[in-house]
């Protein structure tokens, strides 16, 4: 009922626990899945490629050797695809950061260029471009 002065602790705990609750972002979960798939494909591909050699080497049967070749090629293909996936999903996070950093730097640079006074205020003919002399000996 509205009039009852409800004992709040349970409600408070509820609010706190929900505030602490980690809610998975479905997009992030999907990206993590692709990333893992890429990693697995890459590893499996490499293993298949490596296994193909002893397979082919261990037999005189040229049909079996052909099969081993196919395994090796499949492995390489899987590794390439896996690497592409892996790079795509591991680099995006990094590249996003890098891009943000880049644009921040650019902005900073632009600000510095527009606010620094023109260099013509430097004393004319100073070979050191205004940098103070630290060397006491005359040249």
């Amino acid at each position, binding site marked *: 009922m509205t009039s009852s002065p409800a004992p709040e602790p*349970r*409600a408070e705990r509820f609010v706190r626990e929900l505030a602490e609750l980690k809610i998975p972002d479905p997009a992030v979960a999907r990206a993590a899945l692709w990333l893992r798939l890429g990693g697995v494909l890459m590893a499996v591909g490499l293993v298949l490629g490596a296994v193909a050699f002893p397979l082919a080497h261990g037999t005189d049967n040229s049909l079996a050797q052909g099969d081993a070749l196919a395994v090796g090629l499949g492995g390489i293909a899987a590794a390439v695809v896996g690497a592409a996936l892996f790079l795509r999903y591991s680099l995006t996070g990094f590249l996003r950061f890098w891009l943000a950093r880049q644009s921040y730097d650019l902005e900073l640079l632009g600000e510095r260029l527009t606010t620094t006074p023109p260099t013509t205020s430097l004393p004319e003919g100073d070979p050191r471009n205004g940098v103070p002399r630290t060397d006491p000996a005359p040249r």
Partner: protein
Amino acid sequence: MGATGGPLLELSGVRAAYDGITVLHGVDLEVGAGQVVALLGPNGAGKTTTLKAAAGVHPISGGRLLLGGRDVCGARAGELARAGVCLIPEGRGVFPNLSVRDNLWMMTFTGRTREEVEDAAYARFPVLGDRRAQAAGTLSGGEQQMLALARGLTTDPAVLLLDELSMGLAPLVVADLYERVADIAREGVAVLVVEQFAAAVLKIADRAAVLVRGRIPWQGHPDGSLHAELSSYYLGSAP
């Protein structure tokens, strides 16, 4: 109201669909701690779906679901339940072939001991104590509903969602049950009750909302005017 002063449960423009067919077209509801809100509506209006959405069991396709002021879209229902959202579904969901005691003992997964679970249940519903060895399926409808409530309460809910508590029960039994629900709310629980037939729940409700075809055309204090509203919506004469 909650610790932050806001409602513990808030649905804002919630939409939900089954297989692409939208059945909730923007539902707004708020339930504060210690409040009982009655959601009334005819069969198929989307009352159960609203409760499922509020519990995070049914995904919402639009709008926002806030629990304790937090937008919890995308959270797992299990996590919400652990935090204190308890849905008691239509049809009670007790195990008919198990004894009352066994039904209660199942709730020890919440980390309580058997004694704690039993004591709490029997203290609130003494009749369950008298029938502890009886198969739940042989209890009366009202007693089964009490057992379902007792089971739900072992999870120490902060938000309690009740679906058609009165279904198939005699009016006196229903009135008694709703007294217990009012007690639960008085302890600070936010209670959202869904009913098709209003009379009993309106005695204890702080607010009422009418749900018709997935929309809430009326919401307010449950007083005399609501009855006129209800009959017009149920009989289809409202715009």
